[in-house]
């Protein structure tokens, strides 16, 4: 059983570890995934899968800090492959919808309602962020939503610290230009 070390020493079981990690990170990571994916259901799925993966690898991960980093990497990767798949899924849905309206349009439905509730400035900023290249969006979201350090972001994205700086700089510059244009 995973709960018991080879030496017979009891350490936190995968269940206990995941329960603690869940308490600490579930909401933040789902929100991060949602910021990247803009889809409630997909965001939860991606983060759920990340937690399941950590649970299944707990014997090799073993500590919370490593697990947090693993979760972030998994969520960012999951969100990215989610975006790739969404193209496929949306084409499929469009085809399905030719016979009439379906209840399938959850991406657009949710975001339309969300926008109505947001202040205009938030909407403008989020809109501008959404038009940035994917990498810049990821870096800025992790930086300014999760307050991650440059090193943590570099680790999560699998890029160098220098690239993180460069993406952040370019992204912020574009946002500043768009905010100035909008005001």
């Amino acid at each position: 059983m995973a709960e018991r070390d080879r030496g017979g020493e009891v350490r936190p079981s995968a269940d206990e570890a995941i329960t603690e990690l869940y308490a600490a990170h579930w909401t933040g990571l789902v929100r991060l995934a949602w910021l990247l994916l803009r889809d409630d259901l997909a965001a939860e799925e991606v983060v759920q899968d990340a937690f399941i993966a950590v649970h299944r690898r707990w014997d090799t991960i073993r500590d919370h800090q490593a697990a947090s980093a693993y979760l972030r990497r998994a969520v960012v990767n999951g969100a990215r492959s989610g975006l790739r798949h969404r193209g496929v899924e949306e084409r499929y849905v469009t085809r399905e919808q030719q016979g009439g309206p379906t209840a399938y349009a959850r991406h657009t439905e949710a975001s339309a309602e969300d926008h109505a509730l947001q202040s205009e400035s938030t909407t403008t900023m989020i809109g501008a962020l959404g038009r940035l290249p994917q990498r810049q969006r990821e870096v800025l979201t992790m930086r300014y939503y999760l307050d991650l350090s440059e090193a943590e972001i570099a680790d999560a994205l699998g890029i160098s610290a220098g690239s993180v700086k460069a993406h952040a700089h370019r992204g912020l510059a574009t946002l500043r230009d768009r905010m100035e244009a909008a005001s």
Partner: protein
Amino acid sequence: MSDRMDFLHPDYEPGEFDQVERRLRQALVRDAAQVRPSNRLDTILHEAHELGPVTATGGSGARRWLMPLAAAAAVAAIIGGVWWSGQDDRSGVTPPATNAPSLSQTPSTAPTTSSPTTSGPVATESVTLPVYFVGPVGGADDKYKLFREFVRQDLPVGATPAEKAKAALVLAINAQPYSNTDGYLQPWSGQTIGDVTVADGAITVHLANAGVPEAVVGDENKRLAVQELVWTAQAAIQQTLPVRFEVSGGATELFGSISTDQDFTRPPSDRLYEDVAPIWVTSPTRDQVLPASKPVTVKGLAIVFEATVNWQLDRGTTTVSSGHAMASIGAPMQGEYSFSLGRLAAGDYTIRVRELSAKDGSVSAEKAVTFTVK
């Protein structure tokens, strides 16, 4: 304001982006605050257990990333709710036996209630067990099939698969908590689960009695009553080992008609409909309370003609909305479906997910779940 020097690019002018950073931070926080993630801890723990630990040699994780989104590829994950995909993932990677090293160490005579060999008081942990029940399919013809519930239960830390199976079976024979809300049958009332052993490639379940024939109407429901124990035991140990029954006092027929001289198992994935109800709703869960700030998403599993499910949302006697959605695959396979109800005003609701008959459009299966928005 940037409080981290490590984040500054050499090209930054001091204060250059202060304003943008502040507004971006604020926008992200406000935007994300409307997302109220549902509680998935139980699901995570359950699925992780069903898939089992990843061994040093076997990396089955990569495929899992794609599953929730790649509907077509998700077929394996859908059957029995990811449970079968664990089997798929493991085949050719790790022999099943290595996932359950304790199986062969369980002497067939050991009472499954024996505590693990820890010193001092036995620590318990809360685990989520999938438990199957016989319930009404919800069509006009009064048929019954299996439904799955996730039930939380305290078990000793490090409980063996046999101990988990016994705990799950004890829950399965008590359908009383669900009989009023979901109409689940209580074919096993008066039953007691004895020893449960996992050995020699089979699960053996000892029953105190053979079941009362009069307690279950019809041969098919008697068969399903046995199958609910089979599905529950296999799900608990996370392997499709054959299930055998032994009855105290030497009776050889369950419910007076089903021979115990045979191995029981679940049907293959293209014949799940023999046992499994056409429509399962996995989310929202029964009487779940959801925040009004967030759109409500309905999810479930369905074995339905042309992969189409119809739904109707009722509030009291008023129908609020209705529509249809596609499952990831149609009958005879079990597909995953999900659809959004949008944001709902506070109140009590019932979501009815249906299969309509291809012949005449009548409701051939329906599962209803009540939930509250506030």
